[in-house]
């Protein structure tokens, strides 16, 4: 007996022995039990570690015990089993710690922990099973050992849950057994073989194999909670939290999913399964479950129930990845096994924590929970965001690979499923996160435990933190060689020995150029965690973007786009941070603001620096989501509504972008002989268009920008929207070919945004809204230019610098204007300083109009010259200046008027304003100086920005042209002329066509709810169908069994006798 025979057996036996020892431990000996628990888990963990290292060094592990003739009990360590074993062992350890904390001082602990150990032993055995029969044995053992855990509480709900669980799993087990027996008769000992067992066996009846496959999947699908078989999972949330974690993350559902993987890959073999036409069946089932689970989760108020439905949805990703039957999708599915485990266990830990500590069970009770339990909710947030698939958390990796894999396997519809699921995920997780962090506690906690030093017992706190951290790491370091992803890749390599493409091109490395730029902001962020340092950090924040500037200066590789954007970003963040110092000096929520300010900054700079897709999309997401609290900052009704609009569009944009980038990656790396399809470009346009305020996708802009604090709106409007542009420049196939189908709508949208935005903006009463519409209008010009580039690829070379230059110009000008809004008080006061201050407002305004001698004129000139091949475009540019001048005029006019607070604005901000008014009448230099700096930049950037080609040809005075002047004058005239008319018109609501979207959204919601309800009704019907049938048959049999009572056994006996005679003699 050498080590390679003993080790797998020892790993399986470890938890079993621990379980038995615990079972024998008297109830009152808590310490002994704890020691047994922890040592058991630790020993198993270290044995698994040993196994891992040994397998890595090429030793074969196999324990084989004869079970029946021709059937052995086989425990074997291959890469797939190791993946699952390590996950179980690792999560078991933390769940044990958690459970010890959770069950402190309750009854029947020996029983609980004993079965807990046995359960994990069964899981590990299942993972190491080397053939289908061994798998079945441990699979059923798992069912049995889970039962006492679910029933542990012993109340009516948990008994019912346990019963339901059994009904499902027993039937599933029976089906599985039937399938396995049948298969065994056909194919002999069912050892798992990579690349499939059945391939090598000749003369198998295809129909039989198909039926067997359905039997097997039905059996496994019960545990994997595939659609019609998932009913037990939501019910069993009545179990204690550690059990739920175990059920959802470590053992049970994973066992089902793992079994499906085994059956498809190691028994049937992927190609063979596809041959039999079974993958599509499985994929459709899994896809439906994904969507279905999400829809059901939406309407659950019970937190654990919501999480349970989320599990239903998420676990099917694994099955989906398996069923898509392509190597990349396989990786996605397998890695989700681990990732979902990490994230879901975190969520359940957190749910358990709040239930245990505060008695909070419902989503509706969670308002303001973040203040009471910040660490727990932090972990929750990370995990929830990961579930949605927000990079760089683990969930994204899975979805990414699934998406690319789906395309690779010619199943683009899966992408749609992923998108819908992600949106739904966001729809049920984001409200929770919002409630937790950004709402005030509205009622006392149902059952508050006495406050400890930490927010709850450390044993309850540590596990979720660790697992959340792991989920984060697993996503961030996905490309590291020991990550779950690399592991899954290894497994997939074995399963698809011949057809695995080179995956390095889609690795998620999160690479950025000059990462050192981000070191300072990140370290500041880290320092914010320490209470005492916060004041210092806030002082230091303006320094954070400066390394970016340095990097831009040092950048020598000639990538002007990046250099320009980096310059713009760094400078404006610097200005914004400086401005914020003064603007938010007295704000209560300063800390939160700066936290997200920093995060957004990191995201923004990171996006600019990013070198490949993963880092781009990661930082992009970071920036987009971190901006949410900035918009929400005042927490007025308007702010809430704006922020919620914003986040919806962000999610929409992210999802579209995800699909687009998946497509982009696939077509640029794997589809050598296919032409990129048009939808990828379209999705890119839409995805980034949301950020870049593309007309019809712009509606969040005029709502969000005005409500944010001034520095935040400045940055939003000036920098962050430009990231959309950056995305376009990076990923669109600009300059390569013409995509007229998209170019025309793009130009049309750009033009209409430029004009209609201006006209709509003129009627606004809030200067910030006016500025926002101006942004839309200006971005319309950019969009139109991009459209132009799509139409005329040849012009791209000339157009790119012009667009970048235009973007910079707009960034500086618009931020100055926004900052000026904050100076409104000073502008109204008639001091010596006032004219200079007005100058600060006028310079960028004029620049935007593009009056001669301004940088705006430069920018427009550059655009004009780049688009000279189509004169109509130049005309459009000139005409757009009329709109801009209208807007600027309106802005100046509004700045002159005494600012009337809209009634709906919350009183608090008004008080804040009045407080400021009374407290100091001296000019706030803290605000003025950054504004001035910004204005200076607005004028001067022309001179220090990178050497754009056109700068060489043109001088400032070359912009002196009538074409640049007359639109402004016309605009001014119109403004003056229409003064009366406009005054009579009530300002229309900011966000113009948002109403339409809202209507559509409401409609969708209604349909969704209706659908959800009807599904819910149907499926509760389905899950209770069994019970009903049972009851009905029970009563039927009850009635009939009265007649069945054999009152005349003697007669019966002679009848049997006659029967025997008949069968024998005749």
């Amino acid at each position: 007996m050498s080590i390679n025979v003993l080790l797998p057996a020892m790993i399986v036996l470890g938890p079993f022995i621990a379980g038995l020892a615990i079972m024998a431990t008297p109830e009152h000996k808590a310490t002994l039990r704890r020691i047994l628990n922890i040592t058991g888990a630790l020993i198993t963990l270290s044995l698994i570690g040993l196994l891992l290292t040994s397998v890595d060094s090429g030793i074969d592990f196999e324990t084989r015990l004869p079970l029946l003739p021709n059937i052995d009990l086989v425990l074997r360590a291959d890469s797939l089993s190791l993946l699952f074993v390590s996950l179980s062992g690792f999560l078991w350890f933390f769940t044990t710690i958690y459970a010890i904390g959770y069950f402190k001082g309750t009854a029947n602990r020996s029983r609980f922990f004993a079965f807990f150990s046995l359960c994990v032993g069964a899981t590990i055995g299942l993972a190491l099973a080397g053939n289908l029969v061994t798998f079945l044995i441990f699979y059923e053992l798992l069912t049995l050992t889970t039962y006492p855990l679910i029933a542990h509480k012993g109340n009516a709900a948990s008994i019912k849950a346990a019963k339901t669980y059994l009904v499902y799993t027993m039937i599933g087990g029976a089906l599985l057994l039937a399938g396995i027996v049948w298969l065994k008769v056909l194919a002999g000992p069912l050892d798992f073989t990579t690349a499939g067992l059945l391939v090598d066996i000749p003369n198998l009846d295809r129909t039989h194999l198909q039926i067997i496959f359905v039997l097997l999947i039905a059996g496994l699908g019960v545990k994997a909670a595939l659609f019609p078989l998932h009913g037990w999972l939501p019910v069993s949330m009545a179990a204690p939290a550690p059990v739920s974690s175990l059920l959802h993350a470590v053992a049970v559902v994973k066992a089902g999913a793992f079994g499906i993987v085994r059956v498809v890959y190691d028994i049937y073999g992927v190609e063979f399964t596809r041959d039999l036409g079974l993958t599509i069946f499985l994929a459709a089932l899994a896809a439906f479950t994904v969507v279905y689970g999400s829809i059901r989760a939406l309407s659950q108020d019970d937190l654990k129930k919501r999480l349970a439905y989320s599990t239903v949805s998420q676990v099917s990703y694994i099955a989906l990845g398996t069923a898509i039957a392509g190597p990349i999708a396989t990786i996605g599915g397998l890695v989700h096994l681990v990732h979902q485990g990490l994230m879901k266990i975190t969520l359940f830990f957190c749910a358990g924590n709040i239930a245990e500590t505060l008695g909070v069970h419902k989503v509706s009770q969670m308002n303001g929970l973040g203040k009471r339990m910040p660490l727990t909710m932090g972990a929750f947030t990370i995990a929830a965001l990961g579930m949605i698939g927000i990079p760089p958390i683990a969930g994204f990796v899975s979805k990414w690979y699934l998406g690319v894999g789906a395309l690779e396997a010619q199943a683009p519809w899966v992408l749609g499923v992923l998108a819908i699921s992600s949106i739904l995920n966001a729809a049920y997780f984001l409200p929770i996160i919002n409630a937790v962090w950004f709402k005030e506690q509205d009622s006392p906690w149902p059952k508050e435990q006495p406050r400890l030093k930490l927010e709850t017992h450390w044993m309850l706190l540590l596990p979720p933190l660790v697992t959340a951290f792991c989920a984060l790491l697993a996503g961030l370091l996905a490309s590291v060689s020991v990550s779950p992803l690399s592991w899954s890749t290894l497994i997939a390599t074995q399963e698809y020995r011949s057809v695995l493409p080179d995956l390095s091109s889609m690795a998620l490395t999160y690479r950025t150029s000059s990462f050192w730029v981000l070191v300072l902001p990140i370290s500041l962020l880290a320092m914010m965690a320490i209470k005492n340092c916060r004041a210092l950090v806030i002082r230091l924040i303006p320094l954070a973007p400066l390394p970016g500037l340095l990097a831009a200066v040092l950048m020598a590789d000639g990538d002007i786009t990046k250099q320009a954007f980096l310059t713009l970003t760094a400078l404006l963040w610097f200005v914004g941070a400086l401005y914020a110092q003064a603007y938010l000096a007295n704000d209560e929520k300063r800390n939160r603001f700066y936290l997200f300010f920093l995060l957004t900054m990191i995201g923004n700079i990171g996006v600019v620096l990013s070198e490949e897709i993963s880092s781009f999309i990661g930082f992009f997401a970071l920036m987009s989501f971190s901006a949410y609290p900035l918009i929400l900052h005042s927490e007025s009704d308007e702010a809430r509504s704006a922020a919620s609009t914003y986040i919806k569009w962000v999610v929409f944009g992210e999802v579209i972008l995800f699909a687009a980038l998946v497509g982009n990656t696939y077509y640029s790396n794997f589809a050598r002989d296919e032409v990129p399809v048009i939808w990828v470009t379209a999705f890119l346009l839409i995805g980034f268009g949301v950020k870049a305020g593309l007309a019809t996708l712009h509606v969040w802009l005029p709502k969000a920008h005005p409500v944010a604090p001034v520095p935040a709106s400045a940055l939003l409007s000036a920098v962050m929207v430009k990231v959309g542009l950056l995305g376009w420049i990076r990923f669109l196939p600009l300059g390569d070919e013409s995509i007229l189908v998209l170019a025309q709508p793009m130009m049309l949208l750009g033009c209409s945004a430029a004009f209609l935005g201006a006209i709509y903006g003129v009627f606004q009463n809030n200067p910030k809204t006016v500025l926002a519409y101006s942004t839309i209008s200006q971005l319309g010009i950019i969009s139109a230019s991009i459209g132009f580039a799509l139409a005329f690829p040849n012009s791209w070379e000339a157009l790119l610098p012009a667009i970048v230059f235009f973007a910079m110009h707009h960034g500086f000008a618009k931020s100055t204007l926004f900052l000026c809004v904050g100076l409104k008080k000073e502008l109204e006061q008639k001091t010596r300083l006032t004219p200079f201050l007005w100058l600060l407002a006028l310079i960028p305004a004029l620049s935007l109009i593009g009056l001669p001698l301004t940088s705006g004129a430069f920018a427009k000139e550059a655009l004009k010259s780049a688009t000279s091949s189509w004169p109509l475009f130049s005309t459009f540019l000139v005409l757009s200046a009329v709109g801009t001048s209208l807007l600027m005029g309106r802005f100046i006019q509004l700045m002159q008027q005494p600012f009337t607070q809209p009634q709906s604005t919350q009183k608090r901000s008004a008080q804040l304003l009045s407080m400021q008014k009374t407290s100091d009448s001296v000019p706030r230099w803290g605000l003025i100086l950054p504004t001035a700096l910004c204005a200076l930049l607005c004028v001067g950037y022309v001179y220090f920005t990178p050497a754009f080609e056109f700068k060489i040809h043109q001088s400032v005075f070359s912009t002196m042209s009538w074409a640049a002047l007359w639109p402004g004058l016309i605009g001014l005239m119109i403004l003056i002329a229409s003064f009366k008319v406009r005054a009579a018109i009530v300002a229309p609501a900011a966000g113009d066509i948002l109403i339409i979207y809202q209507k559509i959204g409401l409609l969708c919601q209604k349909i969704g709810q209706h659908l959800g309800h009807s599904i819910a009704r149907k499926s509760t019907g389905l899950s209770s169908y069994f019970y009903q049938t049972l009851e009905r048959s029970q009563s039927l049999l009850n009635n009939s069994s009265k007649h069945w009572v054999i009152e005349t056994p003697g007669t019966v006996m002679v009848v049997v006798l006659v029967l025997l005679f008949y069968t024998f003699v005749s």
Partner: protein
Amino acid sequence: MFNQIDLEYNGPVNDPKASWLITLCSVLGFLIVLTLVLLNYDAHNAGLRPYVEGSLSSSGVTNPVTAVLLNFRAYDTLLEIAVLLIVVIAVLPLRNSKTSLVRCIEVTNHDLVLTSLQRWLAPAVLMFAGYLLWAGATQPGGAFQAGALLAGACVLMFQTGVYRVNYTSIMARSLMACGLAMFIAVGLALIWFEGSLLKYPQDYAGVLILLIESGATLSIAICLASLYSSLIDIPGTGHAATFESGS
């Protein structure tokens, strides 16, 4: 059939008429088939007769039935005695009284007929039982017949109520067990001496068989007597009550 344990005399037939008919037809059919078997198929020519005849001389007895019972198929007989013992154990009271095997008690109202019958008949029956036992070796007869006769004598004696037998006394139990015990002892001893279970040495076969039969006779007699007494209520004695009181 046995669904209800009906204790009512002359109670109604508890199976309904239909099943009565079914049963009747079935049983008749069954009977016909059995008869057909008997009529159409010849019996095996001689059965085991030739074998018995061939080995009779070495069996120690001359009566072939006794030879079969106590030699060739003695194992069956041994188990048969065990069957009897089972029933006795099952019906014996649970309380072991310490009184002796037989006691005389004063009975006030003598039943003259019974008493005289007992006086006259009992010794004769005893005598006849002894003869039957002895004769079993050569003619029909043997342990069971003798035992049954003996039991009859006992019943006769105890019916009067003068003699009270304590079947649970150690003596009675020893007597009941002695048949089986002796059988087993002889059987096992023969393994030791002859190398096979119940393999009588030819010279001692008759003696050993007689020994076994004597033990068996005693056991059978007292067993049957105890079975009888477990069933009846002896008037005025309260016998049955004491019998059942242990349970």
